[in-house]
């Protein structure tokens, strides 16, 4: 019997395990994927000329095994081992509503491949549902999460600048990765042309300057290589492998099992509590159970919905903690892929040195300082860079010495801005189980039905219009624009399937991320989110995880769970 079980070792599971272990709980982390080793499993040592097949995954293999994962920008021959084979992990969608479920099953989950952009939600975001009536009201406000944001930012290390913006609260930052001259030009143009808009350094969980508490864990400062999604042997960005699990491990309270797929959570109707989890060995396919006093669900938004829906009993015929019928519903992802690229006709005659692991961020301004013809809003990620060899060589015809000469010259500045928009919660966007269709481990596969609504489509149009206007304000000639949002899922910010709320009839979790129906069950991955804001969400999952761990331990001490 453990004190706590954490299901999943990714972004939220790593943080939950650290906080539980540090508070003295004997904690078992159960991970469905294989074990990876910090350092030894990484491919950041590969020089460009070492990349298998010049970075490309064989075409037949891509089509056969990675038709969905390959829609993600970070999938290449150096990172292939971090992505699930779609052929081995099937799910279904309605024919006219595709959804890209992008994932990695291994120790550390997607904390290994993430883009590390880290932004707080703001007071406005926690009030949005109450204000416009979409979704259910958040049971907490910004002020309640702020100290946990402080704690998590300090621990993981977030580089960023203090800006004093109400819609994007400042945090405990390491020095920012400074803007280059192309980006300074964009900043000046945008801030002058559109008062109220800001162009700031992208806030990112990379150690611009490692602090002693990072170095204690063997983490050192970022070397500006931008090889992050291959894993970083310097431990210079936060992941479960480099940061949260080692912190949990040094307490002596951590046990990890890998290759163990949680099938369902067991529940005792007499006590009303969860007793443990049923696990299937990924290799032998044999079943076993683990027991604990509290259980943390951190298997990611869709994974957690799958586990809860599959945990049926007489007391919970529709799945555990699902008396509200909200488990699996309100699936949200950020509007993604709405990008504008433009060439600066008169860019500064300077260059930069190093491959900084971030770019610029343009915080939300619609329905903040400027009106929008839709609810909520969006932020932009972007950068200004000198056009590289690939585009210089391939973007136009030409061969021979002339081609080499062209590539050898420093290219013009290119600005790219890409909008991330808030999707409204909609109970019809949901995850269900395919009764009778099980995977090779006997677990029912999921059916994901999710589509953009009218508000989302209106927003997408304005994202492109605003993106173009800002690139043009900087003197950019717009070369390309992706005017259609990518299918839901591609934002890789899926959330909402076990939302927090005040009303147990309309939500799954209370203000402590504790299931309304099952007091010793806490869920702290993206499924807890009652709305998404437009900010990259992982920092919020981690803050919620740390906060919930604190409360779970208090409740245990008080004999309440």
């Amino acid at each position: 019997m453990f004190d706590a079980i954490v299901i999943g070792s990714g972004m939220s599971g790593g943080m939950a395990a650290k906080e539980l272990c540090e508070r003295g709980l004997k904690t078992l982390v159960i991970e469905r994927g294989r074990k990876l080793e910090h350092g030894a499993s990484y491919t950041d040592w590969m020089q460009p000329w070492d990349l298998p097949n010049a970075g490309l995954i064989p075409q037949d293999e891509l089509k056969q095994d990675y038709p969905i994962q390959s829609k993600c920008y970070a999938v290449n021959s150096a990172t292939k081992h971090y992505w699930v084979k779609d052929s081995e992990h099937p799910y279904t969608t309605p024919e006219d509503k595709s959804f890209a479920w992008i994932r990695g099953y291994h120790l550390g989950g997607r904390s290994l491949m993430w883009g590390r952009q880290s932004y707080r939600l703001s007071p406005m975001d926690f009030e949005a549902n109450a204000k416009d009536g979409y979704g259910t009201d958040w049971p907490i406000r910004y002020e309640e999460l702020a100290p946990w944001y402080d704690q998590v930012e300090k621990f993981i290390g977030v580089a960023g600048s203090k800006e004093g913006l109400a819609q994007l609260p400042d945090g405990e930052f390491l020095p920012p990765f400074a803007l280059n001259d192309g980006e300074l030009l964009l900043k000046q143009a945008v801030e002058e042309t559109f008062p109220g808009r800001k162009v700031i350094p992208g806030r990112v969980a990379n150690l611009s300057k490692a602090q002693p508490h990072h170095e204690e864990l063997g983490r050192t400062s970022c070397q500006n290589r931008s090889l992050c999604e291959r894993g970083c042997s310097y431990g210079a960005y936060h992941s479960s492998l480099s940061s949260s699990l080692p912190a949990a491990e040094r307490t002596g309270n951590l046990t990890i099992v890998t290759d163990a797929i949680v099938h369902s959570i067991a529940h005792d109707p007499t006590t009303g509590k969860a007793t443990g989890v049923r696990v299937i060995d990924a290799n032998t396919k044999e079943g076993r159970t683990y027991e604990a006093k509290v259980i943390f669900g951190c298997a990611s938004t869709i994974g957690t919905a799958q586990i809860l829906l599959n945990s049926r009993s007489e007391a919970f015929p529709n799945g555990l903690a699902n008396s509200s019928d909200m488990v699996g519903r309100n699936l949200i992802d950020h509007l993604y892929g709405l990008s504008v690229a433009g060439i600066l006709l008169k860019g500064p005659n300077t260059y930069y040195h190093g491959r900084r692991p971030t770019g610029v961020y343009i915080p939300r301004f619609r329905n903040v300082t400027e009106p929008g013809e839709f609810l909520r809003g969006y932020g932009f990620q972007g950068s200004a860079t000198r056009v590289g060899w690939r585009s210089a060589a391939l973007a136009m015809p030409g061969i021979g010495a002339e081609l080499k000469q062209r590539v050898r010259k420093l290219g013009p500045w290119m600005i790219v801005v890409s909008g991330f928009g808030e999707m409204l919660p909609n109970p019809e966007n949901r995850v269900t189980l395919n009764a009778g269709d099980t995977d090779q481990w006997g677990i029912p596969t999921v059916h994901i039905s999710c589509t953009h609504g009218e508000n989302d489509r209106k927003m997408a149009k304005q994202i492109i219009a605003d993106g173009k206007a800002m690139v043009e304000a900087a003197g950019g000639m717009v070369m390309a624009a992706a005017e259609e949002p990518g299918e839901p899922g591609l934002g890789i910010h899926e959330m909402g399937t076990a939302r927090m709320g005040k009303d147990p009839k309309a939500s799954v979790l209370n203000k402590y991320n504790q299931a309304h129906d099952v007091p010793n069950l806490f869920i702290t991955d993206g499924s807890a989110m009652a709305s998404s804001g437009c900010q990259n969400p992982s920092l919020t999952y981690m803050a919620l995880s740390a906060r919930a761990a604190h409360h779970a331990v208090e409740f245990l001490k008080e004999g309440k769970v």
Partner: protein
Amino acid sequence: MADPLNLTRRSLIERMLLVAGVTATGGFSLPALAESAAGNRHLDAQRFTVLSAVADTIVPKTDTVGALEADVPTKFDAMLKDWASAQTRSQVAAALTEIDTLASRANGKSFALLDAKTRHDLLAPHDAASLKVLPADTKGGVATLMGFPNYTNPGYGRIKELVVMLYYLSEPALTQELTYEHTPGEWKPSIPVTPETRPAAGSMY
């Protein structure tokens, strides 16, 4: 970091170059190159020779190494074997035959047997015509922007892309033609541009 893989590969390349007859005169013999690598190849000798000549024409040796010195044809052939689908293989093979046929029609000789200038003059207009991009049949989402361009001549498009990629990802190109630091260390947001400044490689784009 010590990199044994890299050392082995480098000596392999050197051995191959010796066999291929890189002589004191400093030139490559295309047929010899084809023969030396014939053991384990995907392309037949004729097409490999054409490929080598095409690669040499797209990225010739100038004051820096060209595609041949960077071993592009051998790597290209390996990618046909290890990476390409049957469709890509046949598109590439057809595109190589097409170039050879163009040469025979215009000059009565295989492409590989032409001198460098004649090859360049023949391939340049073919390159321009082949790389025209047809309008995409889907709407402009991010997938369209990320995908392989809809070239009028997809087989040639692949050849061009692979030759360029394999060249600019090679160690000689990244040390002589461009610059590459695996571990830049410091981020300097602004440095002056001088006549010696070379673009830094490192991203795939």
